[in-house]
């Protein structure tokens, strides 16, 4: 009762990174609140799944293992989560802000008439005073998120309704093992008691999901391009530099929207958050929503033909110039000096 739950996502029998990141955050929140950390895993063939979760400090793993649950489907997954939460009454529920969490989260919160905050960038514990109602609240979850296209940051609270629910994007929280030998408990749910036949009315006919080939989140060097790169052809220059220096290519939302790069390369509040040791920003003006996703980079180089680009304010090195001239020079002099 009154614990923290993370609804975990799996991919080919592996707990996804965003879930492990949330368990890491959940562990520290649980320590602060002096409560337990619990996980819910729904799927098929989940023998031993708990072993992936214990090292992150998970005290209890609830498992709904059934062949009908092999792929995520809104209705049966919602039914299981809602029923379990009615029984267990968690105070906090966290989910990844993926297509899974953003489909399931609102459905579950609506069924429980509880509040949900999407895409949080920070979660903290704090108090609240409602002066008008003369009420004091302690140990609430502060759900901190950008709003308004990233121009402001709002702190959202759910004073009265439980659970307090939040989704967080991949890469925003850091994943860290709590204790390799941590021991939790596994409880298997009797799935037939949680779902009805009616929950399976939506049929998955076809599915083509590829495992991600792009790995910008864990790249130590990123060459990222913005709308200012100008074309898909110019983006090839970024790829050439990236290949030369062993980096991954990233992109701003504007560049992705313009079709210069794929969605899986998007960095920022609506994409992935990255913390490489070197971030080379090419033709990126530096909208807040982008900066929020890369400001923790150890070193930032900005290449922009506008010396007044906002990103220059947070850069360590600023090169004012045309990237079609600068990038080939970088490639040339890297090669020359590493021979």
């Amino acid at each position, binding site marked *: 009762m009154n614990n923290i739950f993370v609804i975990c996502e799996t991919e080919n029998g592996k707990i996804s990174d965003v879930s492990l990141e949330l368990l890491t955050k959940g562990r520290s929140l649980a320590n602060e609140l002096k409560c337990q950390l619990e996980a819910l895993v729904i799927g098929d063939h989940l023998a031993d799944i708990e072993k992936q979760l214990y090292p992150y400090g998970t005290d209890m793993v609830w498992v709904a293992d059934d062949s009908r649950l092999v792929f995520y489907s809104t209705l049966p997954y919602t039914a299981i989560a809602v029923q379990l939460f009615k029984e267990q009454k968690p105070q906090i529920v966290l989910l990844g802000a993926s297509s899974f969490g953003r489909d399931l989260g*609102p459905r579950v919160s609506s069924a429980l008439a509880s509040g949900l905050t999407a895409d949080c960038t920070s979660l903290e514990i704090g108090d609240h005073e409602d002066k008008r109602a003369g009420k004091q609240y302690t140990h609430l979850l502060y759900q901190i998120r950008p709003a308004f296209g990233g121009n402001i940051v709002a702190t959202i609270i759910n004073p009265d309704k439980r659970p307090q629910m939040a989704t967080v994007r991949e890469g925003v929280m850091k994943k860290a093992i709590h204790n390799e030998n941590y021991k939790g408990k596994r409880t298997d749910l009797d799935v037939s008691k949680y779902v009805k036949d009616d929950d399976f009315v939506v049929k*998955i006919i076809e599915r083509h999901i590829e495992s991600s080939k792009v790995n910008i989140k864990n790249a130590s060097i990123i060459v990222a391009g913005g709308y200012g790169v100008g074309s898909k052809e110019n983006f090839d220059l970024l790829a050439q530099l990236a290949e030369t220096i062993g980096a991954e290519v990233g992109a701003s939302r504007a560049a992705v929207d313009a079709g210069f790069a794929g969605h899986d390369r998007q960095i920022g509040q609506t994409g992935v958050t990255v913390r490489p040791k070197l971030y080379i920003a090419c033709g990126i003006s530096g909208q807040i929503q982008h900066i929020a996703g890369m400001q923790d980079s150890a070193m930032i180089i900005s290449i922009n033909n506008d010396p007044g680009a906002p990103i220059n304010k947070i850069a360590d090195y600023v090169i004012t110039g045309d990237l079609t001239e600068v990038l080939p020079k970088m490639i040339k002099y890297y090669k020359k000096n590493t021979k």
Partner: protein
Amino acid sequence: MKALKIVVLAKQVPDTRNVGKDAMKADGTVNRAALPAIFNPEDLNALEQALRVKDQIPGTKVILLTMGPGRAAEVIREGLYRGADEGYLLTDRAFAGADTLATSYALACAIRKINDVDLIFAGRQAIDGDTAQVGPQVAEKMHLPQVTYVEEITEIKKGKITLKRRLERGVESVECPMPCVVTVNGSAPTCRPRNAKALMKYKHARTVTEQQDSSEDYITLYTERPYLAIPEWSVNDIESDLQQLGLTGSPTKVKKIENIVFQAKEARKIESNDEGIEDLMKELIENHTLG
């Protein structure tokens, strides 16, 4: 095939690309009056999907539903110009300050009043909040199945709709019984432009409030052509529980709003000539940032 009744949920949103200092009120809610208002982009993608169904199945009706202040009627007119058949504006102070849950509840009540709806389309998310919660929550409030992240409708047959979803790393095709809620991605086809005939036809479409405010004498126009009257629904026009509406019905509260301030650094300027770039690359190699 049986003609369908489709509701498209549309939201008028502040254009978040141009946000000024007076965008937020002291209580932390949005000061919409201070911002240019636009048709939420992904709701236009949703409207296009609805219009495609209408193209395919004769007699199908596309009905816009929006909740907001009086000026949100602009969204209804825009939809009518692009091919929708009618639209409803849900507007009342009782709805103000609603979070996604209270919004979804109000919309669900209005959809029940429209009655006998086969499909509910909405954009995946709105650009002012980026939450993607209202579609699924409307579905839950109405106890209907939902299909999110939709890019294409592949088939409608025997009371079922087949849709293609665009997910992070691929696509999924699902078959869902109707009625259901469908949220449409920005990667779906863009909405058709305004139609000249529809523009002429609906140019004077107004809500009752707008008709009263209008200085021109159009009164006879609205009695002669009732389709020009955009129905305006208040809390009294829908069957609802007041406790679930507006600020009261919102479990989430805004505690604090802050502007974002980034720590500025002292940047080193690098010349873009050969010498400048070579020195930089050498330095990065020497301090092991590169290589």
